[in-house]
Structures are given as C-alpha cells and as structure tokens.
C-alpha cells in the first residue's frame, strides 16, 4: 500500500522523478510511526508535593515536548475574556483584525506563530478598552483610603485578567500607575486606568506557557498556566472560579486533576461554541459568509440561504456533540440534519413550515450522510459556478485525511477546463487531467472528488447534468485503510467514518488546534495512539479533547 509523502519534504527533483505515485506516507509522521519517547498519551510525570501552589512535576526523562510559548488570544478568546472580566453580559462585537488561516497548521486560525499584535490590532485593543472603561461603573471606595481600595482592586482584577496573582514588581507598577492617575483625575479615573491598561497588557493578551525557568530546558507548566490552557481550550474564556481556585491551590498538577477539570469544563456553556468552532474549521466552513457564488448559475444562493447553510452545520455539530453520542462516526453518518424553508427546497424535502427556524429533519439516506454531504460544506469546496471535483478531492485528502499533496511543479502551464454544455463535469475534468504531467497527482485527487458529483456547486443533489446521467463513482488509493471504489457521497462518508486514518486526522487537527502549532513526529505518534484508543467507539470528540488534556504534552514544555 502506498501512502503520500508530505509536501514539506519532497524535493522538486524527487517530485519530477516520481510525481504523486511515489512511495507515500499519508501523514507528516505516518499513521503508525515508531513510538516516541517513553511517555504515555495519557500522561505521566511525578506529581508535585510542595506547598503553596504545589511543586510542579518533573518532566519525564528522555522525552521531547513542544516549545514554550506565549500565545496571543484569538479574537474570540479576547472578547470573551473582556466580557467576563467586566461582567458585560454580552461579548463585544467590535471588529478586530482577522486571524490568518495558517498554512503550517492546515488552515486553523489559532496558529501561535501567526498571532501577533500588529499596529492595527494594538489600536483596536486600545480603542475597545477606552470605550469599555468609559461605560464602566466604578464601585466607590467604601471605608479605608482610596489607595487601599486601589490596591485591592489591582490585585483582584489583576488576578482575573492575568490568570494568576500579580508578582511584587507588577503590583508596584500598578500601584504607581493608580497613584498617578488618582492625583490627576481621582478614584474613578485611577480604577479605569488600571482596567484600560490591563486589557492591553501582554500578560492578558498572551497566554504564557513558559513553566519555571529554574527547571531548565524541560519544564512543567505551573498550575496557573495549566488552568489557562484548560479554560481556553475548552471554553475560549478565562478560568472560571472553580478552576482558578484549583490553580491557586496547586490542584492541577496531576493527570487526574486535569481530567476532572476538563470534564467539568465540558459541561459549561462555553464549551459548546468552542468545540463547534474547531469542527467548523475542520470542515472549512468557519468563514462561509465570505463565499460568493455565480448568481447566474445558482440564483437560489442568496445570503439567507448561505447563512442557513452555515447555521445548519453549526446546529448539526451541536446536536451530535451535546444531544448525541459526540462521535466522529456520527458526525459523518447521521441520517438527519436541520432544515428550514430555503434549505428544504435545496434538499428537495418538505418545508418544515417554521420560516427561518431550523427543524431537525430526516434525510434521504441514499443522498445524504452526515456533515460531509451538507450543502455548506459541499459549497465551500466547490467553485463559484460548478462542483469542482479537484477541490473536493483535495479537501478529503488534506482536510479529512491530513495527507499533504505537493503543489504543482514549476513551469506547469495549465489551461482552464473548457466549458462544454454536452459534457458532465466529470467528463470535462477527466479529459483535462489526462496529460502525463497532471495525471500523477490528479489520479489521487480527482477520483475522490468524482464521488461527490451527485452534488452541484451549492450542494444540491443531482442525478443528471447537461442532459447526461451523473457518474458519482469514486475510488481511493494510497490510504491506510480505505483503498477501493465507492459510489456517491453517503458511501464516501461511511468509508471515512470507518477509517482509522480519518480518525487520526481529526485527532491530529485537534492537537494542532489545542496547542496552536504544527506537531512534531513524536507528538504525532502519541496523537495516533490516542485516536487508536478511541477509535473503537467511533472516536468520541469530547473524549478526544479530554485525552489531549491528559497527555504529557499538555503539561510539559521544552524551552528554546
């Protein structure tokens, strides 16, 4: 069985020599890479026994971990945190500079290396902070000196904003800041100055994953860093009170303690949009609102329909995760979705009769199966005016199997696929990709995309195109466990649902999302092990995230 070589390691010379039909490895590390260092996917490390916030455990000897980091909050995390800190009751809707979809983490939006504070974003932070403090009602200082009240406020608000107690130097700085403003503008001005400053502080804007320098190159994260890591991973927000208290008590340093908190956090409201967003990224619809279509070809693709498509998939994800069994398999095979009038028309299903409201609806199992065959996902991976089997095939290979396909070699002149009203899309693309310079890679991509030809460019089911029957037969090669033919979207979804390769890919993307970076070989091997452990149950996505929090990689870092 052949597997795909990672694009990052395939030289041009090698590509030209062997093309995409070379000896292949489906993942950067391969699906069954040799075991990494002697660390468990579910965590080891010796719990600390010290006092105060606990003595951090020592990193297992011989193991390699991800790098120490300071990770800028995503826009969602920043706004959620501000809302929590100031008890706003609603998340600010102010526009922030959009996070880049980073190529190195396969188009996730939280790659730590790409998240920086540009001049624009710094200005946006400042503008929002200024606006918020103007509307903030300062509690008057009751009893005692204003300076003492200020000290209390600095320490209390700072503990929440910094997600740890302020150290002595920080406290002194803020006391001086407070005193200066107190003398100029009074108590309210001084309190709002502290807030305005903390909302722009690097200690608020970045999540520290630095550990204790005294531990040297290999470090364990301290309990406050772990609390922060847990809360943003699972709720995109600050640690809540129980988690903060656990951090203060040093009760997050064992695997069991992390697991307990992770499971608790998963019961909070914040977990729902957080996990939903990851799965939106996984299937590529997180920015569906930016997706235009050719109105001449798809006149029904209105903003209302597009928004309904996104809401459908979001609602479906929520239903699977929180009402269903939360498994990857169900995500791919559920025989239902959520439909309103416009979507019903697209599905060819009866209008549920509740206007724009989405209603859970059983779908024709010969036409639809889970998230892969939902219109938003299909539309996202189509052209503006046609179905685009190449794009869909690439999505399955790269997005759902984590395979890395090399870009076309240099000097590859490509003519557009000519329009022909007498041919189906499949027929046109077959002819187009037949040349020797193209066929190596397209033999891997196109047959997968052809299996989705029953859906047009906005995901509407079709059996005829240009007066000809649609051929939706597909075929996999160069996979771990899916090689062979299939017929249509539901069969493709079933194949993926039963595959260890796709489960390992979901786990790998979850890992990249959790840590905001690409993985190392050794880490990927451990992720594969987690996926393997959970595969028998269809890979419960919530259990997957919990498993990540239990891994040694969650608690240890290598300083560079």
């Amino acid at each position: 069985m052949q597997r795909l070589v990672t694009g990052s390691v395939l030289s041009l010379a090698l590509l030209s020599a062997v093309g995409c039909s070379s000896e292949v490895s489906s993942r950067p590390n391969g699906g069954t890479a040799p075991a990494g260092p002697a660390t468990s996917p579910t965590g080891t490390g010796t719990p600390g026994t010290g006092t105060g916030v606990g003595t951090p455990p020592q990193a297992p000897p011989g193991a390699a971990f991800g790098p120490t980091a300071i990770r800028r909050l995503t826009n969602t995390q920043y706004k959620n945190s501000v809302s929590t800190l100031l008890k706003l009751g609603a998340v600010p809707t102010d526009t922030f500079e959009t996070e880049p979809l980073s190529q190195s983490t396969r188009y996730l939006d939280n790659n730590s290396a790409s998240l920086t504070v540009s001049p624009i974003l710094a200005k946006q932070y400042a503008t929002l902070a200024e606006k918020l403090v103007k509307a903030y009602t300062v509690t008057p200082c009751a009893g005692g000196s204003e300076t003492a009240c200020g000290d209390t406020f600095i320490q209390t608000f700072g503990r929440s904003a910094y997600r740890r107690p302020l150290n002595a130097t920080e406290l002194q700085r803020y006391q001086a800041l407070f005193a200066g403003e107190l003398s100029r503008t009074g108590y309210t001005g001084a309190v709002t100055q502290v807030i305005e400053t903390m909302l722009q502080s690097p200690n608020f804007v970045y999540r520290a994953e630095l550990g204790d320098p005294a531990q040297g190159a290999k470090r364990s994260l301290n309990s406050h860093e772990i609390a922060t890591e847990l809360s943003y991973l699972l709720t995109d927000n600050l640690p809540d009170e129980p988690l903060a208290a656990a951090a203060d008590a040093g009760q997050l340093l064992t695997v069991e303690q992390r697991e307990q908190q992770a499971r608790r956090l998963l019961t909070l409201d914040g977990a729902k949009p957080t996990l939903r967003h990851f799965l939106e990224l996984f299937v590529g619809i997180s920015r569906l609102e930016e997706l235009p279509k050719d109105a001449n070809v798809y006149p029904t693709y209105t903003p209302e329909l597009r928004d309904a498509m996104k809401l459908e998939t979001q609602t479906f994800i929520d239903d699977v995760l929180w009402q269903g069994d939360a498994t990857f398999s169900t995500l791919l095979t559920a025989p239902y979705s959520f439909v309103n009038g416009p979507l019903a028309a697209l599905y060819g299903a009866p209008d549920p009769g509740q206007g724009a409201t989405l209603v859970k609806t059983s779908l024709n199992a010969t036409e639809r199966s889970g998230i892969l065959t939902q219109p938003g996902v299909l539309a996202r991976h189509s052209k503006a005016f046609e179905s685009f089997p190449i794009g869909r095939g690439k999505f399955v290979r790269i997005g759902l199997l984590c395979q890395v396909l090399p870009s076309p070699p240099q000097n590859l002149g490509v003519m557009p696929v000519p329009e022909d009203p007498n041919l189906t899309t499949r027929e046109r693309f077959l002819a187009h990709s037949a040349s020797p310079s193209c066929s190596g890679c397209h033999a891997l991509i196109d047959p997968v995309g052809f299996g989705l030809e029953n859906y047009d460019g906005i995901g509407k089911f079709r059996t005829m195109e240009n007066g000809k029957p649609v051929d939706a037969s597909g075929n996999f090669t160069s996979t771990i466990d899916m090689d062979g033919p299939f017929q249509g979207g539901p069969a493709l979804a079933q194949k993926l649902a039963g595959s260890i390769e796709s489960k390992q890919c979901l786990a790998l993307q979850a890992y990249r999302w959790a840590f905001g970076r690409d993985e190392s070989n050794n880490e990927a091997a451990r992720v594969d092990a987690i996926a393997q452990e959970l595969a028998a149950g269809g890979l419960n996505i919530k259990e997957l995230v919990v498993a990540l929090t239990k891994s040694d990689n969650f608690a240890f870092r290598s300083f560079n």
Partner: protein
Amino acid sequence: MKETRTMSKSVLKRRSLLKQLGAAAFLATPVFRSVLAEAQTTFPLRLILLNLPGGIPFKGGGDSGGLDTYFDGIYKPWAALQSDMIVFDNVQNKAGDKVATFFELEGHGGGCRSIFGGAVNDQGCKGMAACDAGLNPEDEAAYNAVVYSYGTATTIDQTLAAAIGQSTPFDALHFGTLWDKGQGGDHAECFYKGGRAVRPMSDPMSAFTRLFGNGLPTVGSTPAPTTTATGTAAPDPATLNLYQRGKSRLDLLYAEIADVKALAGNAEQAKLDQHLTSLRELERGLPIVPGGGGGGGGTVGGGGPANPGPTCALPGMEARVQAGTDVRPVSAAFNELAYQSLNCDLTRIVALQWLSSGDHIPRFQFLGCSGDHHGMEHSINGGEYIKAQTWIFEQMVEFVNKLKNTPEGTGSMLDNSIVYLASEMGNGSHVLSPALSTIIGKAGGAFRTGRRVDMQGRNINDILTTVVNTMGLNAATVGDAEFNTGAISLS
C-alpha cells in the same frame, strides 16, 4: 502495513544547502542620506512597492521566453506612463526559485517571501536551535520551523523603515486589498522583519482610523494651545491629563513586555518586538502637549506631518473606506489611503498588495470572470487571467496617477518617488523566473525613465540594491550574497 519514509534524501539535500548559504547579506554599514537625492530635491524621496499576485503571461502567449511587459500587450494600462517607467527584461529571481523549492514546493508563498528580500536563509532563523542544528528529519516540528522560515529575510521596506522611517509618524505602511481572504494567510505574506511577517492592513476603515483617527490633517495647523498672560503657550490641562494617562499606561506596558521577553524563548522574541513597535505607534498617537513632550506632535494620526503636501486633505474619505469583500471599493479605498499617507507625509514607505495569489474565492464577476484568482493564475493564457491582471494594473495606474497629478516643485510627487512593481510569480504557472520587475518614477532625478533595461539574467537583488541605495542606504548587496552582482546605474 508498510511504513516508508522518503524524506531523508531531500532533507539532507536541503540541509547541506542550508549550511552553504550564508547570512542575509545586507551590510551593516552606517546609514546615510542619499547624497544624490538630497542634492536634486528638497522634497522627500518615497518608495512604493506594488505587489501583483500571480505574474503575467509570456510574450506571445507561449510557455517560455520573456514576460509580456509590452504596452501593446498586458502592460497596456501602463502605456500613458511609459515615459515615467523603466521596464526590466530578463530578470531572474533565483532566491525565489530556491525558496519555492524548499517551502513545500509552494511557488506562490515562496515567491512572495523572496520578491522583496531576495534571500533564502533568514535573519529570524538565526539563533533558533533548529536552525543552528540544521534540519533534523526526525523532528518534524524543528524541521518545519526551518522550512517555514525560508525566505523570511527582512525585506527592503523594513530595512529602509528602520533606517529612515523615524522622520515620519509611520516608518512604513502596508495595504492589502483582500489579501488575507480566501485562504490567503501566510500564503501571501510578502514582507518580513526579523523573521516575522509584516501583515498588510486589510480593512480600510481600520486603516483609516489608524492613520487619521485623531483628526483630519490641515496644512500648517497645530493644536490650539492655551495662551497665558505672558503670551507663552501652556499645556491645556485636559490635554495634559490625556497625554499623561496614555504615556504612563504605555510605559507600564513597555516594562511588562520587557519582563515577558526576558522569560520567553528565542522564537517569541520577534513577536514581542512587533508588539512593542505597535505600542510605540500608539504612543505617537498621544495628544501633543506644547512643551510637554507629547507623542509625535501635530494632528495627523497623532504625529505631525513632516511635510504635508498642499492637497493633504480627506474630504468625505471616511464614507469611502468601508470594509467589505468587494475588491473594487476596497482597492479604491486603499489607493486613496496610500496616496494620502504619502501626500500628508505620514510615511515615505508604502506597500500595496492586491489579493492573495492563493485566493480561492471568485472576485471578478464584474469583469465576466467566473473563476477565482488562483485558478486564473494557473490558466496562464486564459482570458479570465488577462482580464483580472489588467484590472489590477488599472488600479495600480490609478494610484500612480494620483502621484503624477500631485504637483511638487517643478514636477510631481511621482518624480520624487520610486514605485517598484513586482510579483511573486513570473507568470502564474509556478514560474518565478523571469521575474516581473518595473520601476515607475524618477527618484528625484536619480533615474532616467522611459526605457527598457535588459538585465541579462541578473537577479532582482541587483535592482533591490539599486533601490535601497537610491533611498539613502549604502548597501553592497540585498538578500543572499550569491544572488548579487551589485547595484546598477539607472541615471
């Protein structure tokens, strides 16, 4: 199941090459103002980088030969400006060729990373353990840290910004029409400082607020001071408070960033430096306090226009800089913002970028094009590709004409500018060489325009070296030394 890794061969090849490559070869010589430019004009010399996504076709529509940089071909929109132009033929981008080969064979990203820096190795990589140790094929993260740093050498806009950018409120400004949409991201990051991407502004309204948020500029105006009985200006108390509040806040934030820098690893230092730079810009936006040492002074973006042109004004501009995903108004807004940032002397270094060469979203239905730009690029001879590139050229020409139509001394702003047009691609089909390379503007009289220059296979590095020297540096090379043969004479 048989697992076979095939990376070692290519990795070793790249490792050995990496070690052969020296540091980016920009010489650390003392910076001095260009004698030539100073002698010939009292107006500031400006550099504008225009970045076309996806190159242009070869002459005659074939798949080889020179690029069609002819005024009866795809350069037709430039025809009226040809007397102001120097069109370079037979230019190579060998740094880009190498970066693209290393960087996941990714011609668009690789070309983008090299076109304004001309280097394979990078300064941001220096000091990183992965770089020092070379490429380790068994450690994918370390490997990727190296691979994704290829071509991220500091680009000429940033080199010049560091050298001459302190005389204006903004050392350099980057505008990108929808560059980060449609899977753009690091695919289309073309400007770097210390190994970190300098991302263009993509939202016109945010850009407008950043540049002009403290009020529209008026020539010669200053904040109204409070006049005392003795006739000397004294700080307005409210303004003074505002300044002190902002300054004390920023001082605290600077100290905190220093704390974090002391604890963070090498890979995070540039990230924090960028944050620091962003905060410094906020400081320049603090209100001026006469005699009190306020931010940058003046009323424009909080920093005083060093030499605002007579047409420095933005009537009705705020209404024209609304955000959106329609390429037309966004492009028009950035053209105006970029022009006014120069006209008001907010900066003397500007980069303008259109789209991402990896854009998968159709943007040109108004031209009758159904495809997305990336698809068009790969259809190098397709009609839609020609239409889209022509449209982008038209937007560039519109911008350049703003400079040309703005009088300055006996000439125009364009006469005192260097507009450098390039693309991450030679043509759209992953061909980086020959490279698109054209200069518009007389550089204050330093350049003799209205001609073609046959570079005879020399690299873009030599043109970049010529540009930075004309802007006032004394550089023997730009980018990796191996791609340099020296500056060229354009007088």
